[in-house]
């Protein structure tokens, strides 16, 4: 996976391929287009959906959700942003890490309805046009993954780790990246990737 030519978007969508291959049909959820009134009372009946506007990667998304929906499920199941991964779904593994108002959080323990009005950044929002974010490139350059399942969470966490000023040395990187578990134990290469990307990110 360290071949840089494979890093360019190819138009191939693994999830679409898998969905087609298993015969399932993905029905896009139609977001309600009506403008949201921020002061509108929330649903008074738990069985009714709540109207939520999430700002994801710079775009407002209007959704009608069960109040129980987490940011992770809103991203994956309602907005088809499947980069953020569901590992433990209990805030223990870090696979679902996203940035909310530029701070890394676990999206599996964040209710979507409580994230209204905040800026959510996912792995899909990191690259600019056809250029990978320095941390994405560093993960490829350093072969910082095997199966790749934890990688989006690792990369989001790593970007925040650098911006917090916690990537100055290997001990700090290990301590402040400890909330992201890698089943394949690619940790040495993840540390190397964070070290590589840190100066470029800090340079802005």
């Amino acid at each position: 996976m360290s071949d840089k030519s494979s890093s360019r978007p190819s138009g191939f969508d693994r999830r679409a391929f898998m969905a087609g291959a298993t015969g399932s049909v993905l029905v896009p959820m139609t977001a309600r287009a009506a403008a949201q009134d921020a002061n509108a009372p929330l649903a008074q009946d738990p069985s009714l959906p709540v109207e939520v506007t999430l700002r994801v990667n710079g775009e407002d998304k209007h959704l009608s959700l069960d109040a129980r929906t987490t940011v992770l499920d809103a991203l994956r199941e309602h907005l088809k942003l499947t980069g953020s991964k569901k590992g433990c779904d209990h805030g223990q593994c870090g696979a679902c890490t996203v940035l909310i108002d530029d701070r890394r959080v676990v999206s599996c323990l964040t209710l979507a309805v409580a994230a209204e009005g905040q800026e959510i950044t996912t792995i899909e929002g990191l690259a600019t046009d056809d250029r990978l974010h320095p941390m994405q490139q560093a993960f490829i350059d350093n072969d910082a993954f095997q199966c790749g399942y934890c990688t989006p969470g690792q990369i989001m966490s790593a970007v925040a780790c650098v911006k917090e000023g916690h990537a100055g040395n290997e001990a700090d990187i290990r301590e402040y990246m400890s909330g992201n578990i890698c089943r394949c134990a690619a940790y040495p290469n993840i540390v190397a990737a964070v070290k590589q990307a840190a100066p470029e990110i800090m340079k802005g």
Partner: protein
Amino acid sequence: MRPFLYQRASDSNMAVQALGAAAAANNPLTKATAQPLAGGTTLIDLMKLDVMRPATIVDINPLARAWSAIEPGSDGLRLGALAKMSDVAAHAEIQRSYPVIADSLKLAASAQLRNMATLGGNVMQRTRCNYFRDVSYENCNKRNPGSGCAAMDGVNRMHAVLGTSDQCIATYPGDFAQALIALDATVEITGKAGTRTMPFAQLHKAPGDTPEIETTLQPGELISAFSISGRWPRSVYLKARDRQSYEFALSSAAIALDVQDGTIRNARVALGGVATVPWRAREAEALLKGQKFDEALGQRVAEAAFADARGRRHNSFKIALGKRVVARALQQAVTMEI
């Protein structure tokens, strides 16, 4: 997860009203039908596990504007209950004047969880006892009062050796609360009738015969702030755990000392990972006052701290480990440069 009504608090009056509705029917607080949502790292987790089943969630994050200030002053410190763990841990003046607080927060959870979790929610977090968290175990006096305790004769390696009862041996899992209890913190509580304060040491309740009652907080009350008098630059938080990072304590010690010319004028010792509540070891403190520190004194203090400890089949090692943690933490506090 069961369905719930989501309400967003517009102000603290609305929050305590919503949380306190039908308060009498909502006791104990741990079973109250309305629960506050701050960082959500305990509540949402336990709702997914079906351990907590609120019918209403009151999102109190809009109160953060008023309740999240970090205010070190010349005669003490005030911390808003909705301040995030990460912000307090990273605050330069907290690191300088209250290292025990900064380190207790920094050594807890993960960077992501510290960005979410608030100070008030942190001290209210529920035990990590597996028999409590897994509803397939019927016997949990904390979850199902009167059902028994599966931990007593179960795998109780992580369980408490201090403050236990024959009804519950679940460990209080947090770190920050040990720092608060060591520094004689005061907790400010906001309810319908306004604001009241009490010693933080009176917030948590040992399990006794009612392990489902964990604190003296009532439905309709919210922690709004913590305050501490004085500065405690000579203070440490030492945490021993199974992994180097991102793990709950097997044993921890919060130590704060006032040492002048080699003599200990004032000493605070609190223990974590070993007790059912944030644990203040006053007997141990008494041995330190007026003394000059040496290794032998450290040993005596450690023995005193665990004099009443009672181990079970799998957790007796915590008594030996806990003594070493206390002795080492004392050594660190005495020798640290301030």
